[in-house]
């Protein structure tokens, strides 16, 4: 018996929030993207349109290039020594790999949350949230920072838990709280796109659920791309799913892309079905 049934049951019924290009947020178009680590090619010829207003999840076995994929979307890929990428990623029609593109500015527009919670250890909870504002935006009066802190922490449902200890170091929180703090830090600078690289893989089930619920809230304001190795999570939290797989040369390819319901219930590619039913990876 295949696992497709039970997984498909997890897919939330939300036809109402189906992909639509009429939403006010920015979508992404990825065209002929290739990514390399030195001479090794990690991704080959990726083409995807990522829709605003929904959560897009990227799934696939380890080493299929899914993390590399989202790191290419905010040009974090090239931060790794020897890593390069070719092709184009259009945000609102503008190519972030264009000749005039400025990676630093792009990253202010496209936030990222990492696999391991990484609050700044020398900064308080308060300062962690506004780090992006402090370092990269013109100075603002204190009350505006206060507002941003409260708004961002409320958005990640952390405000009530930490409002009395905002001056405590960010690393004093639990893992799940730290990760929500990192999400608050990412949205404090009001990006248009939010990238999450396996944000719950280091967390326990309760904290994971909180993060997933959060995505549900955040997608109304941000275009969200979620990388996960957890298929249940993709089924629960996303409307659209992209399945990546590495070939025998360890080069990652996009195998199938479509509504999550379709990927989990009636996958078009046999490799997708094999992966989802647990016969692969």
């Amino acid at each position, binding site marked *: 018996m295949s696992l497709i049934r039970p997984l498909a049951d997890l897919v939330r019924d939300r036809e109402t929030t189906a992909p639509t290009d009429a939403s006010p947020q920015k979508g992404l178009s990825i065209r002929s993207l290739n990514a390399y680590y030195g001479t090794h090619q990690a991704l080959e010829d990726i083409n995807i349109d990522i829709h605003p207003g929904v959560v897009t999840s990227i799934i696939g076995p380890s080493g299929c290039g899914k993390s590399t994929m989202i790191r290419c979307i905010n040009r*974090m890929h090239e*931060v790794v020594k020897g890593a390069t990428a070719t092709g184009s990623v259009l945000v609102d029609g503008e190519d972030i790999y264009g000749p005039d593109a400025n990676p630093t500015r792009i990253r*202010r527009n496209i936030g990222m949350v*990492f696999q391991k919670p990484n609050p700044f250890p*020398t900064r308080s909870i308060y300062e962690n949230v506004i780090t992006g504002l402090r370092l990269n935006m013109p100075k603002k009066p204190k009350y505006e920072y206060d507002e941003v802190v409260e708004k961002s922490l409320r958005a990640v449902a952390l405000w009530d838990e930490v409002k009395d200890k905002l001056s405590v*170091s960010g690393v004093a929180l639990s893992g799940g709280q730290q990760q929500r703090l*990192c999400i608050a*830090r*990412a949205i404090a600078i009001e990006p248009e796109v939010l990238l999450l690289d396996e944000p719950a893989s280091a967390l326990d089930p309760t904290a994971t659920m909180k993060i997933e619920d959060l995505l549900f809230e955040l997608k109304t304001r941000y275009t969200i791309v979620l990388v996960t190795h957890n298929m249940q999570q993709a089924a629960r939290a996303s409307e659209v799913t992209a399945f990546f797989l590495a070939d025998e040369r360890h080069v990652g390819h996009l195998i199938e892309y479509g509504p999550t319901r379709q990927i989990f219930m009636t996958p078009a590619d046999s490799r997708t079905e094999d992966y989802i039913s647990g016969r692969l990876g």
Partner: protein
Amino acid sequence: MYRAGESGKFLRRRLVGGASVALAATLAFLSVGILFLIVGHVIVNGVASLNADFFTKIPKPYGEAGGGIANAIMGTVIMTLLAAVIAIPFGVGTAIYIIEFGRGRFASAVRFAVELLAELPSIVVGVFIWALVVRNFGGYSGIAGSLALSVIMIPIIARSVEEILRLVPDSLREAALALGTPKWKVVIFIVIPTVLPSIFTGIMLAVARAAGETAPLLLTALGNSFFNFDLRKPMAAMPLQIYTYAVSPYDDWHNKAWASTLVLIAIVGILSGAVKFYTRRWKHESH
């Protein structure tokens, strides 16, 4: 047969294991013992000559009793501080370049050069500053001594800060970069504050090492039997004073050499102990 072989092997393992532990413990004990022997010897021989005058007076000519090394203590403090002021930006800057910005061949070349500089015999540094500064700019001076000490300190600071920066997890840098922070701001506002206490410890190590250097000062600061606050003139320093006292044929001066050594060890020890204590507390507070 089978069982006997097994238990024999087991016995041998236990013996070899026990012997290894005993050997390691003995060697560790001996190393620490040597340190205690040195410090103990210095204390026994030096403590008798310590008195208030020793810290407040300048050396007396041979034959006159009393006198002190106040000028040498002053000279060491002044020259070491100035050397630190010169060396810290170079050392820290070099480490930041190597770890945070350097890519490719040039960065490796810089790294290699720093390693070579660290292994340079200190007398060579003295000769170098002598040829470059002493010969060309008004002779022996405190400045020349400071420069020589800073050349000693730069690679020590650079290497320890390099190691410290290497310990900063990349996830922290990525977190800041992903907020759209330019690389230089990531270094100044995120990376450095995270390891500031450790950087201070690294700098203090270099200061302690430089404060005890003799060879580079012989050819640069020269030494001085009187108080001198003018950096353009020859300056006294504790290692130089120890050297002068030690190579003399007089018993009284030998005792003073021991006493000076004791003071030097105490200053360096108190300094690094205090820095360790405060930076440790600081680290705990920031977490």
